[in-house]
């Protein structure tokens, strides 16, 4: 083993760029949960939240792709890009299903999807830096 590589610490999917979508997603999930518990269909705030979340995820994706374009490589490329594609599809999926279901269950769908997104962001980070790699 040589000296510790600096590439791991320079992960493009770390820090504020990942923290913002995670926090945002959890906020939308909490808001949607409250709506679902109160028998409310998805409101404007949820759809705006999903849109802002999507923008944050696209920023994350662009930064990751720029890093890859600049010669950096994720630890597990296949899994990394799989998670990346899944991630940017999540808010649109929630949006479409919530539009189809204008009841409390639409809010429940938004909540469920927004709970999954942070998990995918964390998995994304893990597949960039492979432990012991």
């Amino acid at each position, binding site marked *: 083993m040589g000296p510790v590589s600096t590439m791991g610490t320079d992960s493009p999917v770390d820090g504020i760029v990942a923290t913002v979508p995670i926090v945002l997603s959890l906020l939308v999930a909490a808001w949607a949960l409250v709506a679902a518990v109160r028998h409310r269909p998805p409101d404007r705030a949820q759809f705006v939240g999903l849109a802002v979340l999507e923008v944050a995820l696209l920023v994350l994706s662009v930064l990751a792709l720029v890093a890859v374009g600049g010669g950096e490589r994720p630890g597990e490329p*296949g*899994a990394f890009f*799989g998670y990346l594609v*899944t991630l940017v*599809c999540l808010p649109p*999926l*929630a949006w479409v*299903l919530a539009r*189809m*279901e204008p*009841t409390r*269950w*639409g809010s*429940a*769908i938004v909540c*469920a*999807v927004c709970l*999954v997104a942070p998990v995918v962001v964390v998995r994304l980070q893990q597949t960039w830096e492979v432990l012991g790699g």
Partner: protein
Amino acid sequence: MVETGPARRRTNSGPGRLLIAVYLLFAIAATSRAGLQIATRFDEAPVAYLLSALAALIYIVAAVGLARAGHTGRRVALACCSVELVGVVAVGVLSVADRELFPDETVWSQFGSGYGYIPLVLPVLGLFWLWRTRHDHA
């Protein structure tokens, strides 16, 4: 067709739509995992990877069955949820009893602990939902 009131529900509306959403998420998760495993390192654990692929297929078909909602859709969903429940329990028991059998994780290993045990809960919810809507689909 005559509406019998607000209690009338099909498998593809209300809570059912949430169920379909979660099935879709698991279909995506299992499909990408199986696809990647089979494409990159099939020789390491063919049984586990083929099982991942089977699980992925079942999640997709179950989601379609619930979404189609008709008589056929319900039967398809019933079959999928049943196979899924048997699968997650069988694989869960086997993976705990004999770790050699599943050297690499699948969606169903350890009763789906890697996925927050949702794979174990999901078929139960699916069967419960089919039972709840049993009179409302004709």
